[in-house]
């Protein structure tokens, strides 16, 4: 069976059960209905314990029914639901309003609410049964059966499915579980006790089924786009922050590397208004999933143990396409290279989900288009952050429910189509080309110009190199920890061995190494279509010597063609 007929079947079965229960609650059992029930085969399912037990007990009752059953059930119905006879006023009144209003009265808020809902579907109780109020359990169940029927006619209509889960959340599940508990307490017959169990169990299960079906249908129909206000987005952000740490580029006033300037780096935000959009962030988001300094191992009494990750929450990062693409480089190194997956990287990386900040213009130093990293579809949610209004595209099932009440909108995220800076990549197609690249005099220009500070690697979203450093707690013992800290191939110590041999001896050689890694080696090694540079331009922003990496690549490429 295909998914479509699976869903159709499911809708029909749900509708049937809702209608059956409605019929049981609306009035006393009549002999014909009771007889037909005996012929019914009840599903033997173990999806929900109350439901399973209820079916079992109902079957037992029907199998062992006395000839006075109709009368017994009529008496029990009157006693349980109508508080007739010797019930001392204790009954399970089958009206939502009774269960949800302060003074247990009929025709209160819930009643008015369901009337309105029925009306929005062109229904009035006249359509069903005029003897009871609209918030009677039988009518609410019948309404669900009707929605199931409508859903079966149009299974792609998410709104219909959502109105069912909403009706369950806002009405049936709000009171029926308590009502069923009362039925089990006040009913004398096994019949109504079993029906109560079935009702309670089925509603609970059906709510879960609806979530699944909604996810499947949404998945089938692609992503969902919405328009919402900044305030509304902040409310959603507040919701998200219960389970996630939410990071975005954030401004830190007068904390910049150059005197009085501001620093923009990734940090947790409280409002989408915190997200800095007017400039490229000084740092990439990598410090979130690959911290600057990270304890790997504890040493204690001559034993070693793995550091514990204290972070329990998952991570959401608002990032531009370049940075989302940048994480692929770190993934290659930390998760794939050499066939070893790095546990410290993986345990944080697995938590990360991206909310893509739509980036249409780029900034002064960007060259993402040249690097082919201006676009991505690797995000859970895409956002266009306007002054007062936000457009979102939700792709990740996990976030569907958060946005589902928002106003639908047309939104296709756009990407940078051209940068002011255009970079031409070097042509290296043979061993001879590579030898030529290594031998270029041009690299010597950087011997003096570059001061080997490593700042370019620090701000880079794809640079992954690190040193390990041991820290001890006291001079008298070896108890302590082994950390890893970011390193840079531009530092003069990067290739320096304990014996004092430095394998790359000049800043120019380091520049040659870094450039080739970024635009040749990485791609060659991993056979990907992406280089280890996403053209974010941060290294140019950072360099105290005003060395531009895009200019370096361009000059390198020109030199290769001479």
């Amino acid at each position, binding site marked *: 069976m295909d998914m479509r007929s699976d869903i159709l079947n499911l809708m029909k079965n749900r509708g049937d059960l809702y209608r059956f229960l409605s019929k049981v609650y609306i009035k006393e059992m009549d002999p014909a209905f009771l007889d037909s029930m005996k012929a019914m085969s009840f599903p033997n399912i173990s999806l929900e314990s109350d439901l399973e037990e209820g079916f079992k007990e109902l079957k037992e009752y029907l199998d062992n029914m006395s000839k006075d059953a109709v009368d017994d059930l009529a008496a029990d119905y009157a006693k349980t639901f109508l508080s007739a006879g010797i019930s001392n006023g204790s009954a399970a009144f089958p009206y939502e309003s009774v269960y949800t209003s302060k003074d247990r009265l009929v025709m209160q808020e819930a009643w008015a609410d369901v009337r309105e809902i029925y009306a929005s579907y062109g229904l009035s109780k006249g359509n069903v049964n005029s003897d009871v109020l609209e918030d009677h359990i039988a009518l609410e169940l019948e309404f669900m059966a009707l929605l199931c029927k409508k859903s079966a006619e149009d299974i792609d209509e998410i709104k219909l499915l959502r109105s069912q889960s909403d009706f369950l959340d806002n009405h049936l599940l709000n009171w029926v579980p308590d009502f069923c508990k009362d039925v089990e307490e006040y009913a004398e017959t096994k019949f109504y006790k079993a029906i109560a169990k079935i009702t309670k169990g089925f509603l609970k299960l059906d709510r879960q089924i609806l979530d699944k079906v909604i996810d499947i249908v949404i998945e089938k129909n692609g992503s969902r786009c919405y328009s919402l206000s900044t305030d509304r987005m902040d409310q959603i952000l507040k919701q998200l922050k219960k389970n996630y740490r939410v990071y975005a580029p954030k401004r830190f006033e007068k904390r910049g590397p150059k005197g009085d300037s501001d620093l923009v780096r990734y940090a947790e935000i409280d409002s989408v208004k915190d997200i800095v959009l007017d400039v490229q962030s000084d740092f990439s988001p990598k410090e979130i999933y690959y911290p600057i300094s990270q304890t790997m191992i504890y*040493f204690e009494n001559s034993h*070693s143990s793995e550091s514990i990750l204290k972070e329990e929450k998952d991570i959401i990062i608002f990032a531009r396409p370049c940075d989302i693409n940048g994480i692929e480089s770190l993934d290659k*190194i930390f998760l794939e*290279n*050499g066939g070893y997956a790095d546990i410290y990287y993986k345990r944080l990386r697995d938590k990360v989900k991206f909310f893509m900040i739509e980036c249409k213009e780029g900034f002064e130093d960007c060259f993402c288009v040249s690097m082919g990293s201006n676009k991505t579809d690797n995000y859970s949610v895409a956002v266009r952050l306007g002054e007062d209004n936000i457009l979102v595209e939700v792709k990740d099932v996990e976030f569907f429910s958060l946005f589902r009440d928002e106003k639908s909108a047309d939104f296709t995220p756009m990407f940078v189509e051209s940068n002011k800076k255009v970079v031409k990549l070097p042509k290296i197609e043979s061993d001879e080309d590579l030898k030529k690249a290594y031998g270029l005099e041009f690299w010597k220009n950087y011997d003096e110009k570059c001061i080997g500070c490593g700042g370019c690697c620090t701000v880079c979203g794809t640079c992954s190199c*690190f040193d390990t450093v041991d820290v001890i707690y006291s001079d008298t013992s070896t108890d302590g920890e082994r950390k890893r800290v970011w*390193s840079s191939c531009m530092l003069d110590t*990067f290739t320096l061995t304990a014996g004092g*041999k430095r394998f*790359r001896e000049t800043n120019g050689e380091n520049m040659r190494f870094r450039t080739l890694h970024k635009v040749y080696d990485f791609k060659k090694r991993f056979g990907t279509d992406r280089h280890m540079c996403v053209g974010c331009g941060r290294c140019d922003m950072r360099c105290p010597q005003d060395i531009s990496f895009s200019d370096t690549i361009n000059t390198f490429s020109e030199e290769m063609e001479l």
Partner: protein
Amino acid sequence: MKNVMIPKPHEITHVIKHTKAEYTFRVACDDETKHGQFYMLSIPKIGEAPISVSGKGDGYLEFTIRKVGRLTEGVFGLDVGDTIFMRGPYGNSFPVEDFENKHLVVITGGTGMAPVKTMLDYFSENQDKIKSLHLISGFRDLDCVLFTDEIDKYKCDFNVICSLDNMEAPGFHKGLVTEHIKKIHFDTFDEYSVVVVGPPLMMHFTTKELLANGVDESRIWVSIERKMHCAVGKCGHCKINDTYVCLEGPIFNYTDAKDLID
């Protein structure tokens, strides 16, 4: 998921002091290793460094360490009964099966003997597996000579030329290893391989001299040393071109090694 960065403590059972600056540490360890592989050795608070296995036997491994840096200095403070942290073995190994039933020439400079020593021991014990073995080992002076007992044994098994760079002494030739290469009659070998391990300059001039003596590039194997902080392809320190020495090395055929430009 296995955490490859966690080292395990191992007990030091013997310390062999070759020179003031070069000791061999024997540690209790049951690992299977191949010839030419290395371990990351560490002492908490001092740090980690890649060290070749220089000897192995039933339930132990040996590491020959030259006192050059903070870690190795720290290791020199250790004694029998102390603990050293280890993880490994890492890296590829000498293609010993390729070497078997051929002539083999091994040229070492100083502690460069350590990475080839388990292979020399293997052929010393299995002489029927090699047509001939020629060892040229150079040391700076008499105070720097390592593995004297082993070399004496090798002298019974193979053609051994031990040379001191700067001085004359009984039982030693004088001069750099490069000066002795012409004593090997490569033209009389039908099939052979050459292994060169030592300091970068020694390897540079030795391979140059080998090529000048008509040795084909593809017959030469080298083991190279680079700075490493992880040994599993993550830290980036040992990367040359698109090659990670810790993963694809430390042993390279010269046809590949000659193109490795740091």
